[in-house]
C-alpha cells in the first residue's frame, strides 16, 4: 500500500472531530508555518512540490498563488471550490465528511501564503451532511483559536465562511463561482483579467479545489521535494481516484500520481462486474474524452493521460462494460450538459441543446445517416469557442464517443435500435 | 341618243367600274395580304350574323368614315385642308376620262364608245393630271400645320417629281413606235401582230419602257416599296391631321391610283382591250384558223379582257406591295435619278436607232 496523504484518517473513528485530528498531528504544521515561515517560503515550497490543481485543469498551484499582485491595497480572498458536481467525481465530499480539519489546515496555510484574511468555502447545496460537518469543524477550529483573530497566537487573522450553492454545475467554474458568491447569476466571466488579479468583488482572489488545499499541510510538513517524489512526471503527490460504474468495488482510492489505470480497475476496484468484458473508461470525470478498452494501459498522471488523448481531469474514473450502449451513455452525458449550460455564450447554449435533440432523435429511431457527422461538427463548433470550459466539457465526450464508437452510432441509426442487447434484469 | 346622255352613261359606267374596283381593293388588300402571310384577314363585320368573307368591311369602313368627326387643326388652313383630298381624288379619277375601257360597241343602230373622250393629246392629259395630283398631297401637308404632315408632303413632292421624269421619258420610246398620243390609237395599234404571230403589244415592243413605267407608276401611286410620303413607321405622313371622309378620300384616291396605274399599263403595254388574234369578226389564229363571232360578242369579250387585265395589274401591285420592304429615302432617290432616268433615256436612243435603221 502506497503513501496515504489525504485519506490516512478516513478509517479512524470520529475522524472529523478536531480531537482526533489534533491527536494525529493535525494543525501542528499550520502552527509551525505561521510562526516560523514567511508567505514567500510557503509558496516556494508548494511550487517545489509540483502540486497541481485537483479540480480538473491541473494548473500548478504554487504558480497560481504567485499571480497575486504583491503590493495590492485591496483585500485578497481565498475561495475553496467545493462545488463538486462533475458526474463520476466524489472525492471532495469524502475529505469534507471524513477529514474536514485537513481542509481547514490547508486553508490556513494557503491563506497565510497569499495574504488572505477571508476565505470562502463554496459548497454545492446538495452536500447537506458535508455542509454540517464542515460547519461543525469550523466552529471547533474557531473554538481552539485555529481560525479567527490571531490564529494560533500569531499576528495572522483568518475568517472562514461556508457558502452553499444552489445546485448549478456551472458554479464549479471558478469565475461563475465568484459571480454566485457575489450573489449574481452564475455566469462565467471573461478571462483575462484572471481572478488572481480581479476576482471576488473585484479583488485578487485565489480559487482552489478542496483536494488541492488538503494536500498543502503534508507538503509543508514533509517538504515539497518529498511530495514531488511521490508522484510522477510534473505531477506531484497522490490523488483520490473515484472509481464508479461497472466494477465490483467502486469507491475512492488514494493512489500516487502515475498509478496504472489498468491496476486501478482490475486490482483495486476488483475488476468488471458480472465477469463481463471492459468496453470503455472515462478517466477523469464525465467531461473528458473516453478511452476504449484497448487504450487503458496508461499511467494516471496529467501528462500520460494527455498523451493517450484524454485528460486526468478530476480523476473520476467511470468504467463501462460491454453491456453498455454508448449511444444511450452519450445521451445521458449530453442531457447533463444541456441542462447545466448557463446560456451565456452562444455555442454552448445552442449547441448542447442541438446535440441533445439529435441524439434523442437517434434513440427514438428517427436518426439520419448524416447525424453522426453533424454531431461531430456541432461539437467541434463548440470546442474552444466558449467563455468557460463547460463548452469543451460537453464537446469532448461527444467527439470521442462518435469517433471511437462510430459503428455503434451508425448501427443505431440504420437499425433503429442499439447494437448492444438490452441488459437482462 | 344625245351626245350628253351618251357621255353621262359612259361616265357612269366607268366611274362605277373604277370606284367599285377601288372599294373592292380596300377589302382585297387586307384579304390578299392575309393569305400571303398565312392569316385570315378582315372577317368580323357581319350583318345578321352573315359575314360574307369580310366584304361588309367595305360598308363598315365607309360608314365609319362618314360618322367620324371632321377635324381641322386649329392653326391649319381650312380651305386647302378641305381642298387637298378632292384634288387628289379628282386628278386620279379624271385620268379615266381618256382611257378606253373597250372598243366601240355596236348596240342596235348606235355604237357606244367605252371612253369619255379621245384626243390626240390623251397621253399628255394623263401625264398632266398625274402631275397635278401632287398638289393634293402638298396642300394636305402644308395646311395641316403639323411637322410630320409637312415632312410627308415634302417627301411626296420630291418623290413624285423625281419619278415623273422617268415615267414621262419611258413613254417617249412608246410614242415613237406607236406614232400617236391618242390612247385609242395606241390600243388599235396593238391589235397588229409582229412576225405574224406575236401580238404587237407595248411590252414586246418596249420591254424596258414597260418595266420602267411600272416601277415609276407604282412610285407615283406612293405605295410600298415607295411609300415615303406616308412612312407609317416613322412620320405617318401628309394625312396625319386628316380624319373622317377627308381621310377616306385620300384613302380612296390611293386605291384609284392603283387602278390608274393598272389601266395605263394595260392600255400602253398590254394591248388595252385587245385580245390576241381576236379581230372585229372573230378569232383569226396564226395558222389560218378562223372562228367567226358576232361583233357584239367580240366587243364584250374585249371589254371583259380589259377588265381582266386591269384586275390582274391591280393584283400584281398588291402582291408587290406586300412582298417588298420599303426603300430608304436615299435609295429611292438613287433608283429614280441614277437608274431609271438614264435607262429610260437609253431606251429612247435605242428605239430611235432601231426606227431609223429599219
Amino acid at each position, binding site marked *: 500500500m502506497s503513501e496515504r496523504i489525504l485519506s490516512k484518517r478516513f478509517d479512524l473513528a470520529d475522524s472529523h472531530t478536531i480531537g482526533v485530528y489534533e491527536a494525529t498531528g493535525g494543525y501542528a504544521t499550520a502552527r509551525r508555518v505561521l510562526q516560523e515561515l514567511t508567505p514567500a517560503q510557503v509558496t516556494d515550497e508548494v511550487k517545489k512540490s509540483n502540486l497541481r490543481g485537483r479540480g480538473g485543469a491541473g494548473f500548478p498551484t504554487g504558480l497560481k498563488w504567485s499571480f497575486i499582485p504583491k503590493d495590492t491595497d485591496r483585500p485578497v480572498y481565498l475561495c475553496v471550490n467545493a462545488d463538486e458536481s462533475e458526474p463520476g467525481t466524489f472525492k471532495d465530499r469524502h475529505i469534507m465528511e471524513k477529514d474536514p480539519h485537513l481542509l481547514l489546515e490547508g486553508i490556513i496555510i494557503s491563506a497565510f501564503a497569499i495574504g488572505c484574511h477571508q476565505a470562502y468555502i463554496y459548497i454545492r447545496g446538495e452536500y447537506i451532511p458535508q455542509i454540517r460537518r464542515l460547519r461543525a469543524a469550523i466552529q471547533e477550529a474557531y473554538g481552539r483559536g485555529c481560525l479567527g483573530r490571531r490564529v494560533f497566537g500569531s499576528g495572522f487573522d483568518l475568517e472562514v465562511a461556508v457558502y452553499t450553492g444552489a445546485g448549478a454545475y456551472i458554479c464549479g467554474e471558478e469565475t461563475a463561482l465568484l459571480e454566485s458568491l457575489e450573489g449574481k447569476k452564475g455566469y462565467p466571466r471573461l478571462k483575462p483579467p484572471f481572478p488572481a488579479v480581479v476576482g471576488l468583488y473585484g479583488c485578487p482572489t485565489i480559487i482552489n479545489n478542496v483536494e488541492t488545499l488538503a494536500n498543502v499541510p503534508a507538503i509543508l510538513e514533509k517538504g515539497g521535494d518529498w511530495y514531488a517524489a511521490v508522484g510522477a512526471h510534473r505531477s506531484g503527490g497522490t490523488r483520490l481516484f473515484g472509481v464508479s460504474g461497472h466494477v465490483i468495488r467502486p469507491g475512492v482510492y488514494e493512489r500516487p500520481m502515475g498509478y496504472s489505470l489498468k491496476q486501478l480497475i482490475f486490482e483495486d476496484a476488483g475488476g468488471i462486474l458480472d465477469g463481463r468484458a471492459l468496453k470503455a473508461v472515462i478517466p477523469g470525470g464525465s467531461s473528458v474524452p473516453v478511452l476504449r478498452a484497448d487504450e487503458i494501459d496508461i499511467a494516471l498522471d496529467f501528462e500520460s493521460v494527455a498523451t493517450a488523448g484524454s485528460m486526468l481531469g478530476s480523476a473520476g474514473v467511470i468504467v463501462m462494460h460491454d453491456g453498455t450502449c454508448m449511444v444511450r451513455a452519450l445521451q445521458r452525458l449530453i442531457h447533463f450538459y444541456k441542462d447545466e449550460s448557463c446560456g451565456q455564450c452562444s455555442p454552448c447554449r445552442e449547441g448542447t441543446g442541438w446535440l441533445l435533440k439529435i441524439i434523442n432523435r437517434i434513440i427514438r429511431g428517427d436518426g439520419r445517416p448524416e447525424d453522426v457527422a453533424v454531431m461531430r461538427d456541432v461539437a467541434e463548433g463548440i470546442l474552444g469557442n466558449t467563455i468557460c470550459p463547460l463548452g469543451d466539457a460537453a464537446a469532448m465526450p461527444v467527439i470521442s464517443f462518435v469517433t471511437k464508437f462510430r459503428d455503434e452510432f451508425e448501427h443505431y441509426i440504420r437499425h433503429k435500435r442499439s447494437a448492444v442487447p438490452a441488459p437482462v434484469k | 341618243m344625245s351626245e350628253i346622255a351618251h357621255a353621262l352613261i359612259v361616265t357612269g359606267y366607268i366611274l362605277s367600274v373604277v370606284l367599285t374596283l377601288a372599294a373592292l381593293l380596300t377589302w382585297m388588300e387586307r384579304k390578299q395580304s392575309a393569305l400571303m402571310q398565312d*392569316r385570315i384577314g378582315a372577317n368580323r363585320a357581319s350583318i345578321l350574323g352573315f359575314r360574307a368573307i369580310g366584304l361588309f368591311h367595305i360598308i363598315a369602313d365607309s360608314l365609319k368614315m362618314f360618322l367620324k368627326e371632321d377635324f381641322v387643326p386649329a392653326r391649319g388652313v381650312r380651305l386647302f385642308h378641305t381642298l387637298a383630298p378632292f384634288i387628289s381624288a379628282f386628278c386620279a379619277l379624271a385620268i379615266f376620262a381618256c382611257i378606253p375601257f373597250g372598243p366601240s360597241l355596236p348596240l342596235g343602230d348606235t355604237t357606244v364608245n367605252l371612253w369619255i373622250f379621245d384626243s390626240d393629246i390623251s397621253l399628255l392629259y394623263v401625264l398632266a393630271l398625274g402631275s397635278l395630283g401632287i398638289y393634293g398631297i402638298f396642300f394636305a401637308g402644308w395646311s395641316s400645320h403639323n411637322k410630320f404632315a409637312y415632312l410627308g408632303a415634302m417627301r411626296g413632292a420630291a418623290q413624285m417629281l423625281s419619278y415623273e421624269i422617268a415615267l414621262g421619258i419611258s413613254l417617249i420610246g412608246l410614242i415613237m413606235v406607236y406614232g400617236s398620243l391618242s390612247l385609242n390609237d395606241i390600243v388599235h395599234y396593238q391589235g397588229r401582230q409582229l412576225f405574224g404571230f406575236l401580238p404587237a403589244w407595248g411590252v414586246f415592243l418596249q420591254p424596258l419602257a414597260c*418595266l420602267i413605267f411600272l416601277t415609276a407608276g407604282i412610285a407615283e401611286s406612293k405605295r410600298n416599296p415607295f411609300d415615303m410620303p406616308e412612312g407609317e413607321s416613322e412620320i405617318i405622313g401628309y394625312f396625319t391631321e386628316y380624319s373622317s371622309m377627308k381621310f377616306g378620300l385620300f384613302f380612296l384616291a390611293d386605291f384609284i391610283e392603283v387602278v390608274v396605274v393598272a389601266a395605263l399599263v394595260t392600255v400602253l403595254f398590254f394591248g388595252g382591250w385587245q385580245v390576241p388574234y381576236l379581230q372585229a369578226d372573230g378569232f383569226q389564229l396564226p395558222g389560218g384558223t378562223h372562228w367567226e363571232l358576232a361583233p357584239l360578242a367580240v366587243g364584250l369579250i374585249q371589254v371583259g379582257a380589259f377588265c381582266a387585265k386591269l384586275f390582274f395589274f391591280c393584283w400584281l401591285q398588291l*402582291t408587290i406591295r406586300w412582298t417588298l420592304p420599303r426603300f430608304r429615302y436615299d435609295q429611292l432617290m438613287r433608283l429614280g435619278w441614277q437608274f431609271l432616268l438614264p435607262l429610260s433615256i437609253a431606251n429612247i436612243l435605242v428605239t430611235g436607232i432601231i426606227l431609223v435603221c429599219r
Partner: protein
Amino acid sequence: MAKPKLNLLERLYLPEILRGLLITTRHHFANLTVHILHRVGLAKGKRGAVTFQYPEDPRPVARRLRARHRLMKRPDGSTRCVACMMCETICPAHCIYIVADEHPDPRIEKRPKSFDIDLGICVMCGYCVEACPEDAIRMDTYITETSSFTREGMLLTLDDLMNHHNEDNFPKHTSS
C-alpha cells in the same frame, strides 16, 4: 454588322424581286385553295392560316402563363400574405401598394390592411411571385381579359385578388 456580298444577279434586283413575288404568290394561292376547299367541306385537317379566331376560338395558353394575380388563402379563408413588402420592393413597375397592419393573432403578427395591384402599370414580369416567401401571391389564374374603361378600374384590391369567379379552374397544387 458585315453586309453580305451580293452577286451580279442579286445586284440586278429584278430576279430577286421575282423570287420574292413567287414566294408570296405561292402562299397566296395555296392558302386561297385551302380556304375554298374548307368552304366546300374538304381538307379539314389542313390549316390555311395560323390565326386563332379569338374570342370564339380561345388561344391555348402555356401552363406557366403569367396571368392576373391572386392572393392565396389560409385554411380559415384569411389571406396568406404577411405584408412583408418583398413583392412591392422587387416590382420593377412599382405597381404594388401594400399597407401593413397588426394581425390579431400574435403568432402571425402582420397582415396587409390593403393590398392593391395596379394592372394598368403591371408588366406581368412575375417577380412578385418569385419574391414571395409565403407563396401568398400567384399569377396562375389564367385570367387575361383585364380591361377597364377607367384607370381606377385597373386597380385590384385585396378583395379582388382573393375572390375569383373561376376559382375552380385554378391549379390545385399547393405548397407549404
